[in-house]
């Protein structure tokens, strides 16, 4: 069991830090009762256009990779396997993030920059726990959402 925990840590160290944006309360950059005249601002630094204030959690390095549907479906001749498709991503999160739900967002940061600039933001669509005795980790599937370019988190 300890081997599994150590292996998970070792593998995770090869990944990168991400930021999890946890939804807290409705943002005051728009009026939720008058949506025809106001809407969440895409440049709002509290909600990033999502309408909810966010608690930012910068994680220790975690593994994540592109989720390819071709692995789970029958082969199709029309399918272009070499296509680079980052629409879906899966993240392997340790057990401390067990409270995250489908309302949260995951931000992949731009590399080689000192400030935390969002490269892509993914909305969590599914979370699958993997349990072996007391060792738990989570596989979170994210779908890419559109954001304003060069958003500083």
């Amino acid at each position: 069991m300890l081997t599994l925990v150590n292996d998970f840590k070792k593998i995770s160290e090869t990944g990168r830090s991400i930021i999890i944006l946890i939804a807290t309360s409705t943002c005051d950059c728009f009026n939720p009762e008058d949506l025809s005249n106001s809407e969440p601002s895409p440049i709002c630094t509290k909600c990033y256009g999502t309408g909810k204030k966010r608690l930012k959690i910068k994680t220790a390095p975690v593994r994540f990779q592109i989720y390819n549907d071709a692995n789970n479906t029958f082969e199709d001749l029309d399918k272009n396997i070499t296509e680079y498709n980052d629409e879906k991503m899966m993240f392997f999160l340790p057990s401390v993030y067990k409270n995250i739900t489908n309302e949260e967002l995951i931000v992949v940061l731009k590399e080689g920059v000192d400030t935390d600039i969002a490269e892509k933001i993914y909305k969590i669509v599914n979370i699958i726990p993997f349990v072996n005795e007391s060792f738990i980790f989570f596989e979170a599937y994210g779908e890419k959402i559109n954001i304003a370019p060069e958003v500083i988190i």
Partner: protein
Amino acid sequence: MKISFNNDYILIENFQNLVEALVPNYVKLLENAEYVDKIRFLNTINETDFKVVCSCTITENFNIKLGNRIYPVIFSDENAPAISEPSDGNDTNSLETITSFEINYENKEVLIKNTSQESKTFEFTLHKFFIQSFPDFILQTENFSLIVEPNTNKIVFNLQDGYVFRLMTEFEGYETKIEDYYAYPIYYFSNTKSLKTAFTRASINIEAYSEEDLKIMISDKSMKIKRGFGMLDEQCRNIELQPILKELCELYNVQEQSLIGLVSYGAGEASTPNSANNNSGLKLKLGNFETDGKSSNSINISSSSGDVSISKRIEQLETTLKDSIIKQAHSVHNETYIEKRNFRKMVIRNVDFS
């Protein structure tokens, strides 16, 4: 727990429950006793340590609130000083100069001493908990006030076995809190060292449990045995029954904890070892990354067969314990019966029929 302050961030180390800290509104920043929204983000370093990165320079006017507790920002001569959590739970600054609390374990009393020159009136709130439901659900709340004369000790309340008490008092704006874990196990048929060995043999990760968790487990299972078999206090103290009781108490815990770990999932891109289809070694797969499993050949996960053997052993022990309790009672009964019969005979013999 250890808290260090820097100009830009607050480092919290050895935090026991990091899952709670990542919930909104658990970590808050106060400036001049008012909440301010100046936390930029939380940075988790590992499973127990995290940083609270702020969008402003931290000064001594700031306090950090973790859950229900408030920790003041204290800078010392060094750049990153550290304050440690007081071990007795008495987290106060100015109250310490006026009062001192003392726990008398012999008489099971909590005493308060007024060290100032004037008599003071303190208002207390006392929460009483079952140890099993501590600290979430309060069993009983009591409010009372005490007048303490200078340089005298006064009993605040009496401790009881099996309960946890939390004493809170407010005095001139400062709060103090005492949580006492004294004497919570009423019955204890094993010890934590032995239980840890049993967990290790059953390949259960003992790092997930603290000493207090293990003590509560032992206490719970001991009470379950005592109640389930209808044992008397004398029988609990019988040294001849202790080996059976100890083994049974440990096996109950092992069975419970191994059953929790049996649930496993096998879909998606990641996989954990499953005893049914992988007995050779432990292989962890995270997408494209996979461990070789060679380093773990010595660990054998056979949870299903192990579980059967544990339940069989528990059945044997339960039968033995039941038999021994009944036989003991029977023998005691026989003894008195024989004594009575002999006494009657003696009486009969002594009767003069003439």
